[in-house]
């Protein structure tokens, strides 16, 4: 049987004209062979001559109707790289005429399946071009508007289908997108297409550095799923993607990043399950939940009767307390003691403790005391279970937080002292009433006499208020 061969070089429109002609002439799919124009090596002069002589006359005129779905399918598949695409389209066209107009709805038909898969491949490629084009800013020429360009390699020649998206999205600037199969140009108003560019031009986009930094930080080293990544971002596109340059580095350093994370886990103290204060105090002596134990002399646990209705919490032991092993016995302790006296509270009736139980310090100038340092978040965090256990053991009616550290620990959020001082907080789980005031050390360190007086007044009135609260609590008890 004589097979007519025809080479399609100008895309879908040419195919449509040829196919219409052949169908009207009644040529069955096995009597025609479509060759893809791009496969130069297949160029067979004889075949093309044969084709020319086969239909010398004018194309057959007549009406040929196809379902809209076919046109859509054909226009898409026209951009598939497979040399079989035209034959397949012709066969489907033939069958639509001879077998069933509903052929395309039959998803399990072999031809329909193959065409659908091709269509899917094209859609996927267009989508990937939309995703993976990386524009680079063209260095501004004198008097020229800002413009951008990008290079990307595609498997199928889809640039004409993919480019309108960029015109819609980036229409306010000029840009070019180059691919081996052809290039697209946007001048601000019109989209035009031209020759392809086989290899990527060297990339010099200064923003890539920030982009890679973002990419690196977004990566979670605790989960590595290279296969999933490659499935969605196939290797063939990597040349266009600046971020892929650091993938090896990310994989290589992931185990280190993980072990660093593990090392930096914030530890917490683990007090024994008891409400016996002596037992707790003993256990706290060997606490190593944070690094402070190393430089401190000893753990300074709270002191006072287990039956106390009032609990007073400071920040951390100071130099003197660290040596003696009791809270509030240094210079700040003197301020504290005087204020307690003035408020009419016997020190021995309250339970007095600190948020952090080890002294944190750095060496001062020679001959000076060790210099006090504020505990860090993780140190407060590590020590907090001891304080929680003390509160559980005592169940005070009133707690006074002296200073920001104590208030922060109990409130579970950053506290601005000025906002909280003087209020009676009744919404917290630790005690029915919680009061906040300044730390005696802050009073010692006050820069001006005026602020010193303000803070001292607050300390004294807060303690007095605490005493009133305790007393009213006692009175209202059934």
């Amino acid at each position, binding site marked *: 049987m004589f097979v007519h061969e025809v080479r399609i070089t100008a895309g879908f429109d040419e195919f449509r004209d040829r196919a219409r002609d052949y169908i009207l002439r009644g040529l069955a799919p096995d009597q025609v062979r479509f060759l893809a124009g791009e496969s130069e090596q297949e160029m067979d002069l004889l075949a093309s001559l044969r084709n020319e002589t086969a239909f010398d006359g004018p194309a057959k005129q007549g009406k040929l109707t196809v379902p809209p779905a076919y046109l859509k399918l054909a226009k898409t598949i026209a951009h598939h790289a497979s040399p079989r695409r035209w034959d397949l389209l012709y066969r489907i066209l033939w069958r639509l005429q001879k077998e069933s107009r509903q052929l395309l709805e039959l998803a399990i038909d072999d031809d329909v399946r193959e065409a659908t898969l091709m269509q899917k491949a094209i859609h996927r490629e267009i989508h990937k071009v*939309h995703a993976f084009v990386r524009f680079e800013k063209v260095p501004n020429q004198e008097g020229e508007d800002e413009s951008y360009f990008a290079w990307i390699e595609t498997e199928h020649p889809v640039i004409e289908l993919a480019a309108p998206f960029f015109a819609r999205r980036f229409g*306010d600037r000029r840009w070019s997108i180059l691919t081996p199969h052809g290039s697209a140009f946007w001048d601000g108003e019109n989209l035009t297409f031209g020759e392809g560019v086989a290899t990527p031009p060297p990339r010099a986009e200064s923003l890539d*550095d920030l982009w890679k930094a*973002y990419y690196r930080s*977004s990566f979670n080293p605790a989960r*590595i799923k290279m*296969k999933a*990544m490659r499935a969605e971002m196939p290797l063939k596109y990597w040349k266009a993607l600046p971020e892929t340059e650091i993938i090896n580095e990310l994989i290589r350093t992931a185990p280190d990043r993980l072990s660093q994370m593990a090392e930096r886990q*914030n530890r917490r103290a683990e007090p024994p399950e008891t409400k016996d204060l002596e037992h707790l105090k003993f256990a706290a002596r060997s606490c190593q939940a944070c690094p402070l134990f190393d430089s401190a002399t000893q753990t300074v646990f709270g002191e006072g009767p287990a039956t106390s209705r009032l609990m007073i919490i400071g920040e951390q032991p100071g130099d003197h307390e660290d040596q003696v092993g009791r809270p509030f016995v240094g210079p700040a302790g003197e301020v504290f003691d005087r204020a307690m006296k003035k408020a009419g509270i016997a020190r021995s009736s309250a339970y007095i403790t600190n948020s952090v139980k080890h002294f944190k310090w750095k060496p001062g100038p020679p001959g000076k005391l060790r210099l006090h340092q504020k505990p860090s978040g*993780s140190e407060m965090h590590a020590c907090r279970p001891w304080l929680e256990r003390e509160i559980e053991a005592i169940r005070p009616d009133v707690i006074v937080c002296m200073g920001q550290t104590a208030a922060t620990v109990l409130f579970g959020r950053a506290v601005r002292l000025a906002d909280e001082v003087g209020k009676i907080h009744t919404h917290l789980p630790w005690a029915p009433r919680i009061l906040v005031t300044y730390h005696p050390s802050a009073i010692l360190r006050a820069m001006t006499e005026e602020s010193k007086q303000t803070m001292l007044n607050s300390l004294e009135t807060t303690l007095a208020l605490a005493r009133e609260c305790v007393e009213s609590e006692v009175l209202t008890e059934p």
Partner: protein
Amino acid sequence: MEIKRKLEILADAAKYDASCSSSGTQRKRDPKGLGNAEGMGICHSYTPDGRCVSLLKILFTNNCIYDCRFCINRLSSDTPRAKFTVDEVVWLTMEFYRRNYIEGLFLSSGILQSVDYTMEQITEVARRLREDERFGGYIHLKVVPGASQEMIERAGLYADRVSANIELPRQTDLDQIATAKTVSSVFDSMERIREKVAESKESRKGTSLTLKPWSEAKAETTAKKKLIFAPAGQTTQMIVGATNASDQIILDRSQQLYDDFKLRRVYYSAYSPIPNADATLPVERPSLIRENRLYQADWLIRFYGFRADELTDESRHLDLELDPKTAWALRHRSFFPVDVNTAPKESLLRIPGIGVRNVERILQVRRFRKLTLEDLRKLRISIPRAKYFVTTADHNPDVWKIDQLHLGDKLRSKKFEQLSLFDQSQSLALTGEI
């Protein structure tokens, strides 16, 4: 601090939010501006953890006044801190978008001073992008629970999507590790958002799905003609494995969120070891498979007609070794076999190995002819999973095995399961084919 360092800190701090989608809005570009949205959402890159990069996902700051134990940014964490300026975030978004690195911006933040102050900062970024830069790309803003009505309305005006994270399913879970948060305050925010989304939808009834450029849409909102408010709706996130909440409790909560607040998505995030973690949190990372199973169950609830309360077994957990649909089928063997040539759609949707799209194809094809086992194979249905549960026009030699007691073990041991398990959680979350 230079902007690169800030970006490193604040992207690192934001990456534990699982939400990445940029879908759900269609908006034209402003003729003088940059960017549009075309509904689908695009993943512009993938990191080696298999997750997609669609939006510039950052925190405005990781300073936070709260001390939620599961959170890397909690007050008592020693993590390095940074804070962007509004200008910096606007610049980064525009420049990244211009190079086609991203679809838009996802902006969340630690809490500064107060909830509304924080909301003001991130909303200002969105306002600047929309009004000053005429930016038409995607914006997702985090709504901090407890935000005022006014702040929520402003966020929804500028953003395509807003989300209030519930983080954990029950109040008791929150009390354990996120003491600053209450279920009721999250619900309160979600309800306010739901109302505005519904109001906006109602006002736009009968108009094109594609929104006008933002400034025109805003003019209509101001003139009270049509309201724009978060056209891509609201989502939330739940962390899995940080407390002892069972899968059933998690799914029940999701079902409620979908029903009551019309959420578009619930994201599940396996609790991941974080730097400076609180040591009382689980040392072991919960399996990613559990996260994946929850996504699968979630899809069954949303697209397959399953109810949350029929998905777990006596343990109140999902089977880690079987996808929840197969697990359900094994617990309801009397429901099967289902005849693919006659069964109603609801029944087809319950067959293991057959996804929503293939159910549609089966319904279409069977108008023309009866389907055989080979036809199912051509539809790329997973025959090793489906074959025990279907009858076809031809002889199906495996269907009698449905009563075998060890069928579960057989299905568990299948290689296909493992492949789909470990590598596709994210893409599965996107397509939902089970």
